[in-house]
């Protein structure tokens, strides 16, 4: 990691140490080795989430897995959630600073230090050094979000004093050394968390996943030899870099600024919004994401690890916009090459690059806001690629309590979905994880079988979506009834600054937490709460943000407006007011003449 340079920023790309001989690889072998690398990463991830215990790993696939060289350069990585893509290189640089030169075959290293590469502390990372003919040549590594790490509060935390309060830190711990398991250390780790059995299962799954990667990569070396495999990997990294640079070159050089965004507060100092300033600078085939002007770091957990979270976000956003997988025929693999053209900068001491030992546990809402702002910054210059504002936050809620035995805790962390902004040619996606998040929900029936919570409602929000030629996506509303006294911790945002409309589309809708809605005890909660108590019988209503509209609503196809009315997204009044569409609700048809007249009168006004 080099020092931060305001003019250029830094990237996640690593430095090559060529311990192998560069050889020519024929195009067929190149394709085969590329395919093998991708499928081993995918297979690693599959083993991890199918055998994991933490609902965040198994349902949400809040995990990453891949193969890396000795410096942490990424040869391949699973496509699970974007948040984890590109975070493992930083973990490896973190452990190398302590352990370089000491690795032996059979080592397994556990790491979660957010100031030394971890995405954030609950994301346990497990790295296994890979040896070939006695030489250390790389790593198999994976990460996964465990249920609890023994911090001040169960599951999630917000109002904590520093990085030691957020959880137990493990900095480059060899839990196996030369094949010998350190049971005492593992026991110590598990004795200090609230969910020891779950964490034990997850740790075993992480180890199984990394071992699988080690085995598969070694098999590939046995088949083709180190020189051929590494030369092919180099070529694939160059390929991904080249494909991304080609698309960057198509954007006119310039500096593109997003509207300043505001996060609700830091979870402690209420009513003080936090500024997010995002500028995208395009220079030939290089991109810089500059966060200068964003808020100073905050005294709670609401800060963002720069290496482990800001850099992966910049890469994911640029890659999503320029190499959109739906619009791009060729599969461009995720590897170190994708990192090279994209740099990011955030001033030291800012919310996006805090100084040790500030806590930085709760970072997702901020990075999703950065992703959203990159989209908004580029929308005017890339209208066919970028989109209107999405639910640029993450709504995570930890429900917990003492279990019936009075000794252990139950902890359930739920990642609620968001929605997308409208897109040129398509409405925004409704009720789906957005931007850096891509997780599954848990079946309601499973939760009711496991925990004392009952679902009352899980539907689309009844308020109308953001108007636009292409309307915004619709968020959901979910209501839980607590059957026992339950602790609540949350990390959410997007209460004060709703998803922005683009190119004439309207703004979307903010989210909300409402306790006991529709009763005389109704109470709106902050987006970030710490150890809030819900009594047995309390009801919590969660409203998730709806995305912004794209383009002028008067240009929307009247038939699509009619469909939205028939599907009860809009009323006939909404259609007239926001879209200039007049409907005959007896025959369920568009009154074309009246619509034309109304629309031209509006356009003239």
């Amino acid at each position, binding site marked *: 990691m080099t020092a931060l340079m305001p003019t250029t920023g830094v990237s996640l790309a690593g430095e090559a140490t060529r311990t192998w001989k560069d050889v020519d690889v024929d*195009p067929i072998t190149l394709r085969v080795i590329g395919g093998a690398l991708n499928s081993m990463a995918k297979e690693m991830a599959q083993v991890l989430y199918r055998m994991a215990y933490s609902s965040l790993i198994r349902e949400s696939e809040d995990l990453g897995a891949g193969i890396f060289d000795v410096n942490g350069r990424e040869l391949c990585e699973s496509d699970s*959630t974007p948040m984890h893509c590109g975070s493992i290189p930083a973990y490896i640089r973190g452990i190398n600073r302590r352990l370089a030169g000491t690795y032996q075959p059979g080592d397994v290293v556990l790491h979660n230090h957010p100031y030394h590469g971890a995405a954030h502390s609950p994301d346990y990372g497990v790295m296994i050094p890979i040896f070939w003919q006695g030489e250390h040549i790389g790593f198999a590594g994976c990460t996964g979000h465990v249920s609890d790490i023994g911090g001040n509060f169960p599951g999630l935390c917000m109002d904590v004093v520093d990085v030691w309060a957020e959880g137990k830190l493990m900095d480059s711990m060899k839990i196996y050394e030369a094949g010998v398991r350190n049971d005492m250390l593992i026991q110590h780790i598990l004795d200090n968390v609230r969910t020891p059995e779950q964490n034990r*299962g997850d740790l075993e799954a992480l180890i199984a996943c990394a071992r699988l990667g080690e085995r598969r990569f070694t098999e590939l070396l046995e088949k083709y030899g180190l020189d051929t495999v590494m030369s092919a990997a180099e070529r694939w990294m160059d390929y991904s870099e080249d494909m991304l640079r080609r698309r960057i070159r198509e954007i006119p050089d310039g500096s593109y600024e997003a509207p300043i965004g505001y996060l609700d507060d830091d979870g402690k100092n209420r009513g003080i919004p936090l500024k997010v300033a995002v500028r995208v600078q395009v220079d030939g085939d290089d991109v810089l994401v500059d966060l200068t002007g964003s808020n100073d770091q905050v005294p709670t957990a609401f800060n963002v690890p720069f290496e482990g979270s800001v850099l992966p976000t910049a890469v994911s956003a640029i890659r999503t916009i320029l190499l*959109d997988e739906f619009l791009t025929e060729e599969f461009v693999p995720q590897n170190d090459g994708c990192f090279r053209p994209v740099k990011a900068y955030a001033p030291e001491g800012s919310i996006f690059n805090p100084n040790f030992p500030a806590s930085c546990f709760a970072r997702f809402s901020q990075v999703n806001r950065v992703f959203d702002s990159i989209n908004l910054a580029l929308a005017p210059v890339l209208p066919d690629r*970028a989109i209107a504002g999405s639910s640029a936050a993450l709504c995570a809620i930890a429900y917990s309590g003492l279990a019936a035995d009075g000794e252990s805790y139950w902890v359930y962390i739920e990642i609620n979905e968001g929605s997308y902004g409208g897109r040129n040619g398509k409405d925004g996606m409704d009720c789906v994880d957005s931007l850096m998040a891509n997780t599954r929900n848990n*079946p309601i029936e499973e939760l009711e079988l496991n925990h004392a919570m009952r679902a009352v409602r899980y539907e689309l929000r009844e308020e109308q979506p953001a108007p636009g030629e292409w309307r915004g996506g619709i968020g959901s509303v979910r209501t839980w009834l607590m059957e026992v006294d339950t602790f609540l911790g949350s990390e959410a945002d997007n209460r004060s600054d709703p998803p922005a409309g683009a190119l004439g589309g309207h703004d979307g809708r903010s989210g909300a937490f409402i306790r006991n809605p529709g009763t005389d005890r109704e109470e709106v909660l902050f987006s970030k709460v710490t150890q809030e108590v819900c009594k047995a019988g309390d009801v919590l209503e969660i409203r998730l943000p709806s995305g912004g509209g794209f383009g002028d609503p008067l240009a929307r196809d009247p038939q699509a407006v009619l469909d939205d009315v*028939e599907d009860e997204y809009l009323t006939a009044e909404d259609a007239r007011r926001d879209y200039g569409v007049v409907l005959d609700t007896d025959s369920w048809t568009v009154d074309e003449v009246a619509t034309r007249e109304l629309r031209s009168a509006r356009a003239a006004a």
Partner: protein
Amino acid sequence: MKRIGVDVGGTFTDLILWDDAGQVVVHKTPSTPADPSVGTMEGIGVLAERAGIPVSDIEMFFHGTTVATNIVLEHNGADVGMITTDGFRDLLHIARKKRPLNYSNHQDLPWQKWQLVRRRNRRTVTERIDATGTVLTPLDEDQVREQVRLLRERGVGAIAVCFLHAYRNPVHEERVRAIIAEEFPEVFVSLSSQVAPQYREYERFSTTALNAFIGPKVSTYVTNLADSARAAGIGEDVHLMTSAGGLATARSACEAPVSLLTSGVIAGLLGGCAIGRASGYPSVITLDVGGTSADVGVAPDGKLRMKHLLDTRIGDYHAMVPMAEVDTIGAGGGSVASVDEGGMFRVGPRSAGAVPGPACYDRGGTEPTSTDAMVLMGWLREDSFLSGNMTVRPELARAAVDTHIAQPLDTSLDRAAMGIFKILAYSMTEAISLHSVRKGYDPRDFSLVAEGGAGPLFAWHIAEQLGIPRVIVPRHPGIASAMGLLTTDLRYEIPTTVWTSSAAPDVDLIATQMKRLEEEARSQLRADGVDDEHISMERSVDCRYMGQGYELRVPAPDGEIDEGWVAATAAAFHDVHGRTYSQRFEDKPVHLVNIRVTGVGAVPHIIIGEIETGGEDAGPAIKATTRALFWREEPSAPEWFETPVYDRALLRAGNRISGPAIVEQFDSTTVIGINQQATVDAVGHIIMERKSA
């Protein structure tokens, strides 16, 4: 007994007639997508004529169909209405809220873009049942009646009834069915407690909605076909292949059409199992390669494996029904080769299809396909296309490969052609390894059965790559699927959620439920006319370690259900978990989530008869010699070899062939690599193995 198997695919309908003497007659005819039963019945007429028997001599009729699959993939099912629990109108719209692609702003969410039930027709009613099956809020029957009337006015073709926890207590769903019978008796009805009685509401509702979506069309099709067959005097009821690899009667298929979703691809795997058994190699991997896609299946000891819950989908919809593990990938004779703007050599998944087709077909295609590559390599000769009454122009294949591959990569035509083949074969190798090595099975314990028109062109190379010791090329590779239809039994699987721990198992609950499931399965089979002596039961349990999120399917013992039975089931789970994830935790309690009973009604299977015996010398079957391109070791330069071409019809049991060689027959060509030797076995299968060093 005379039996026919009819496998209706997208392009062709394959028919096979088999009698107990081992006589086989086959026929291939274009499918008639508008009404597939037309092509089917006409084909049956031709088949019977060829066999020299009247249609009414046919005693049993087995059928594999893509009708259900196509309705889903083409989004042209019924207008469906839904009655669901108040507060949960949009569960089908939210789904599991994970988008298919990570890096895409412009993707579609298939369940939102092509909704199984439009929001206007998703109607809610007051009712609620909890996780224990207790009624918290009684059903408001007036609301039900009102909503059913509304759906009737809107003219929906089917209604899905989906309530929370209905898998535990179906009382409300059943009451809604009774009300629908009064208000709207002609509509097709699906209950979630019947279609997929297991916990996980989104998957259950989606399965139920799919059943409703395809129900009216599939039952019309099946009924028409059964009526036509009956009118033609065909002996027994039509039997349809299910996704789980069993047969269902027309009556059962009409009730649960969702069980037919992958009907079309399972028969190939079953055919492969029968072919392997006949040659004495029960553990098989099947590779069925056609024009646009390849189906890959793995059957250890000839037994089908069922897919993991997360993998049982059709298109982009979840279907929580048992599906045998067969994977389809976009790789076939029409797969297009290209060099992308970053200089990477790519083959497939895009296909030139039948139109414009491979460049050498001269139907307007200019891009090179794998068929063009194999023409250039000398594996597909002009003559071999001729027996299919087609002319090809090798010079067009040459131009396409040269322009699009050899020149951009600055390589020779030979290497370019070899590359197209190897890269495409690699995608098949990957698919096989995903279902074998990565599921804990060693390919060295299997035989590879080559099926479809193009499977026998690829099999030799794929076996070498994966270390599979043996390739079996059946006598009729093109109709292995149709044959597979004649090799299985009536099978009905019924699940229920029990949710109990091995640490403190509710033995009474398991025993009661198991008994109920077995009775249900038995009465289903009796209603199909199966005698008790031909009925047997198989049990399995979906287990996971307490606290895990996903189950694995475990075979469970017969006999009385007691603590010992639970312990034996838990032990079987440790083994399956160990095989699947290379980890077992014997000290952890096992969570028994669902139990399943499969009622099996035995159907007599076909026996593959022997062929005429000859000596070791296959010389008499040589019809030509050609030049063909092969390579010695990986990776190495391609070389041209003088290669004999054999006529499959002239091969005799006991004949031996040393590679390189090409074997031609009506609808398929087999390649024997330079490192392989082959023997024709007693039943006429070509058994290919690596030459001993």
